[in-house]
């Protein structure tokens, strides 16, 4: 009997094609991704039929914290804390870092004018640290110390919603020319900085008809109401969010947008 030779097949699989596919996928994800910006607390925005997208540039986001466990019984002490984040222009001279620096310097200036006895002084490194922050929420008086902390300590501090020193102080002040609360100081700074940028850009133009074509934070704030986005949890009582609305109204920033998730018209509005 002749021996039957069993051919040994090689178990090697050619992975080259697979590798090609994964690299393509990877490239796709890398190019399309916008990283989730780190936020101190998670909120579930309500849904709406509005299809307008959140602008990528020139945006001031105001985050209103909800109860620590959305939908469940949470700690009411964590509710209604205010956080702000600034996003700059697509123009690299007005990048987020640059905008943040301008906002900070302007806000601190206004704050110091209002509180001559308790001035806030920031050095160069602290200002540089601030420009790297995505979202912040603390009173002015805590800023110098906060900016001297390292990243992990900062996140730890900011993540503790029960701490009364977390969140930008806000109250029912309705006098634009009176003593502003910290939130109003920030909003005034936003307005001033936006206006200054707008005026600078306007001066650069040769044709006055081009003023209408300008797109910056000021036009977003004034013409379209896209400059400020309020983000709040759907279960937060309206009375808490109303305080933010009232403060914006006081600062004459009457046009703003609310961040929502998309749903269809037919869905029951729950």
């Amino acid at each position, binding site marked *: 009997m002749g021996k039957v030779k069993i051919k040994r097949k090689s178990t090697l699989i050619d992975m080259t094609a697979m590798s090609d596919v994964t690299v393509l996928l990877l490239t796709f994800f890398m190019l399309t991704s916008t990283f989730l910006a780190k936020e101190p607390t998670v909120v579930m925005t309500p849904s709406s039929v509005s299809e307008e997208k959140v602008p990528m540039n020139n945006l001031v986001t105001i985050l209103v914290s909800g109860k620590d466990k959305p939908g469940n019984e949470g700690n009411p002490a964590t509710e209604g804390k205010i956080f702000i984040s600034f996003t700059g222009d697509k123009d690299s001279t007005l990048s987020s870092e640059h905008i943040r620096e301008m906002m900070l310097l302007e806000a601190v200036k206004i704050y110091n004018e209002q509180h001559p006895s308790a001035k806030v002084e920031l050095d160069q490194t602290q200002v540089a640290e601030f420009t790297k922050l995505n979202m912040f929420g603390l009173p002015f008086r805590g800023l110098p110390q906060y900016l001297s902390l390292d990243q992990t300590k900062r996140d730890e501090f900011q993540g503790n919603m029960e701490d009364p020193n977390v969140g930008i102080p806000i109250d029912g002040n309705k006098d634009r020319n009176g003593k502003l609360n910290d939130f109003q100081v920030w909003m005034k700074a936003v307005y001033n900085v936006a206006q200054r940028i707008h005026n600078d850009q306007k001066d650069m133009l040769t044709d006055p008809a081009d003023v209408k074509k300008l797109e910056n934070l000021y036009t977003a704030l004034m013409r379209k109401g896209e400059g400020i986005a309020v983000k709040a949890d759907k279960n937060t009582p309206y009375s808490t969010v109303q305080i933010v609305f009232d403060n914006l109204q006081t600062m004459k920033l009457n046009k703003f947008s609310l961040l929502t998730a998309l749903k269809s018209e037919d869905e029951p*509005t729950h």
Partner: protein
Amino acid sequence: MAQIEQSDNGGKKKKGAQKKIAIHVDFTPMVDMNMLLITFFMLCTTMIKSQTLQLILPTNEEVKKENQNQAKKSEAVTLILDTEYNVQSGTPVVDENGKTAHIVYYYTGIADTTFSTPDFLKKETFIGNQNGQPQGIRAILVKRNEAVMKEYLKLKEMWKNEEISKEQFDSLAKLNAADSLKTRPVVVIKPGPNTTYEGLVNALDEMQINQISRYSIETPTHTDTILLNEYNRRNPAK
């Protein structure tokens, strides 16, 4: 690992002939690493961008009484929002689907201060459309805004049939919603003390769906509270 396999010719090698070398590079670790990276990017990205809802508030400067626009009695609709609330836990009541129950009370015209008309205040819910027909509060608002909605649906039809572009549709719809020749309601939204943020967004959403161009957000007055109490007295909870 790169492997170099030499083709075996059974030892019969010709001198001077070039060796044929097949190079196999094992790509498995490369694939593994790529998969890990993909997973990382997939988890870290947001594909869905959130939407925004525009809101324009009036200035809070004092407006002289004679300069104030008075809404016609026949056009006024007042919505008082409420969210079912569990007093013990201090959280909104949720149904079996995990959804919050939002209620809206509404009345038309000027508030009845005699509190004697039965069913002056009516109760409705936000339930959207069913079989393409508006339900709940939407049915009432659609009816109040009939003239505008008729035109709006016509425009929508034209847009769907590609007779007009999206931009044209948007601008025409905006003009249509603000057309002062048509009878349009003036809606006053009054969020009650228990209302959640979602309740307010729901109400604002209805304004957009029903093409209501004139609406405002106000705080409930003393009269509204009495009306609500009166309603609850007449219609005790089951």
